[in-house]
């Protein structure tokens, strides 16, 4: 009974949901500033490959190497985000096309695969990886143990991150300014807030978090490198931001829900329940459409909908 399907599903929901959570929190910050970045998948893959590369090439004990790997992944993905930021914020280029271009440039067909093959990273096991910790020795507690107390450090760090982002957005003045930039940049500009800087900063932060989400794949989920290993997680992260109404706490809930769905189909199948796994895999996408329709009009749009200036370049009104 200890490893009933619920426990297994819940534990793997946290595990599979965590990279989604990192990437979605990053995208949430970018979107809250008004920048839609469809390049999440590409940024995640660059994070995954550079993080893995660091672990393979850097000598030293596990913990510092892994921390450096995370830093490298975050910086590399942020550099990708900088391309997008420059194009859509400074040059005011179309955000949809630019984000797609970034995914092609950096993603499974592009830079990440190139770096992986140049570094001959494929097919190697990781020298170091994030392993599950036994927190307070509670990992063996029935039911809650495997779910809550037997996860790796990145899972626990993500909880702290959710709290920080939530506090930042809703309980601080810089957070208020960020939301103003995404809702109404002209109002923010009129009171002296630097719209351009806010958008750059949060787009880059978004990239860094996507990079960490990608590194979770190559350093924790399956510690190795495989071209295109995120397999569409970046797109689910974009859906997740909508699904969570652009709110960090709900992003956590949504990430674990999506994580559960991605593993539930296989878990059920292994127990003889024959429902097509595609059904579960498709649910996040279908639910996102439903949620998006629900927040498209009227009251819900004002309270739960997308930042009003999302996707719109800001031009100071002149003459």
């Amino acid at each position, binding site marked *: 009974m200890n490893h009933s399907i619920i426990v297994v599903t819940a534990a793997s929901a946290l595990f599979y949901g965590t990279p989604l959570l990192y990437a979605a929190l990053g995208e949430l910050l970018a979107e809250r500033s008004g920048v839609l970045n469809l390049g999440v998948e590409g940024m995640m893959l660059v994070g995954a490959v550079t993080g893995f590369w660091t672990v393979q090439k850097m000598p030293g004990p596990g913990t510092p190497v892994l921390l450096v790997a995370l830093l490298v992944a975050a910086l590399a993905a942020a550099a990708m985000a900088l391309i997008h930021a420059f194009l859509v914020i400074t040059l005011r280029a179309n955000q949809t096309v630019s984000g797609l271009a970034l995914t092609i440039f950096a993603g499974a067909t592009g830079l990440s695969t190139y770096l992986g093959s140049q570094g001959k990273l494929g097919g190697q096991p990781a020298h170091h990886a994030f392993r599950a910790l036994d927190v307070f020795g509670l990992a063996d507690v029935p039911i809650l143990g495997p779910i809550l107390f037997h996860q790796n450090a990145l899972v626990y760090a993500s909880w702290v991150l959710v709290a920080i982002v939530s506090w930042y957005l*809703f*309980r*601080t*003045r*810089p*957070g*208020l*300014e960020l*939301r*103003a930039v995404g*809702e*109404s940049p*002209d*109002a*923010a*500009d*009129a*009171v*002296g*807030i*630097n719209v351009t800087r806010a958008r750059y900063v949060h787009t880059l932060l978004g990239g860094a978090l996507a990079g960490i989400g990608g590194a979770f794949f190559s350093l924790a989920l399956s510690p190795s490198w495989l071209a295109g290993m995120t397999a569409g997680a970046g797109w689910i992260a974009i859906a997740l931001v909508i699904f969570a109404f652009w709110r960090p706490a709900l992003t956590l809930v949504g990430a674990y829900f999506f994580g559960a769905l991605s593993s539930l189909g296989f878990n059920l199948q292994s127990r003889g329940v024959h429902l097509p796994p595609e059904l579960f895999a498709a649910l996040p996408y279908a639910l996102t459409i439903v949620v998006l329709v629900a927040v498209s009009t*009227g009251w819900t749009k*004002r*309270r739960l909908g997308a930042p*009003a200036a999302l996707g719109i370049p800001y031009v*100071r009104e*002149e*003459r």
Partner: protein
Amino acid sequence: MSAEGTPALALRGIVKRFPGVLANDRVDLEVDPGEVHALLGENGAGKSTIANVITGLYRPDAGEMRMHGRRVEFHSPRDALEAGIFMVHQHFRLVPAFTAAENVVLGFAPGRERRVRLDRGAIEREVAEVAERYGLGVDPGARAWQLSVGEQQRVEILKALYRDARVLILDEPTAVLTPQESDGLFAALRRMTGEGKTVIFVTHKLNEVMAVADRATVLRAGRSLGTVRTADTSPAELAQLMVGREVLFERREREGPVGDDIVLALDGVGAEGDRGVPALHDVSLTVRAGEIVGVAGVAGNGQRELAEVIAGTRPRTAGTVAVGGRELPSGDSRAPITAGLGHVPEDRMHTGLAPSLSIAENLALRSYRRPPMERASFLRRSRIREHAEEVIAQSDIRAPGPNTPARLLSGGNAQKVILARELAGSPTALVVAAPTRGLDVGATESVRALLATVAREGAGVLLISEDLDELLMLADRIAVMYAGRIVGELDANATDKGQLGLLMAGAVA
């Protein structure tokens, strides 16, 4: 007012050029601490440009600016804010999703210890306190999008007060207010100047200058013509300074009796506004052939919705609309066109025109469905182009050619394109909203003359305008709207601004 004689703000010889336009030509302005100083001028006189120079949005090409005797140079709006200058724009800069209090404190954190943390209860208390001190009642917890226009303006002013701005610039603040709300605003401004703050009041309305300002600087065609104390002058004198000639409100000569044919009839019309609340109640109106019927009212009392309901771009919730005797279905914007209605909308550049399309294509916007512009679902591009070339020549539209995108047209030329298109089919009825707003004197005159001609040739015109002079000049009858209702209908020859103003304020006659 200042005994020491150092003005709070002094501009000397400000020049601001835009390509092809000299917007400010050596403008001088001196504003004393503790005064309400009016910046008076017609549309296009350079008032907004000078306000934008003061707030750091534009950099002047020449001239200098001093605050309390010290020379200042602003590179961005932020610099001006830090120097204590705050501007309330005509279009408010509020975040709709934020509460009033959040809007007020946005971008400003007094004291180091509160730079990061945002305590909602505390800021709401603070904002309520400031609001009460100046008599600017507003619920600090209400979301900006739920506030009335008057309340939104109060939030804007609270922003300035909260950050203790020394100089407050208000750009045409009363355009959206009822006379009562304006009085409340004036009282608040008095309280502020009483504390030594300085108010610059940008306006083109003489009576407001007389009511609230201590001194006024008059601008005309980009130049400052001097500063006068309101106590030492009269509205007539100011008016003459402002327009440079004796202002004569010449009424349109009515030629003969109007016909009996009712070309536009509204009966018991109701409609909802953008927020889903009723914006029109039981509106009934008739326009006869050859007649100009004016609609007066403070902006936001249902005039926009009225025009949209007639044009069919807004569905109605009650009543009927008929053009030339044909009843129109609700919310159908094609039926009025076929019934012979012309419509010059308030929003020229995005409703009246498709800005990226060429002038030629914009001129076809109403006629593209029928021959000769189309044949078997195909457009005849050469025909459309030839037509445009003709119109450009006839209507004296200043543009490089028929393929020029409409967005490059000046306001006057854009209006000429729209009018040429709307009059091309000899409409039986014409709905015109704010036809001369933002146009220079010459364009205004030619638009007004054109409307008079249209009526003389037998069309019925519904003229919706906030400009009472325009209505008194052109209209035969004037209907006054207040809170979505027609509160009175007057013979234009037998009324005056005073009577209209009372009705517009909701003091039902």
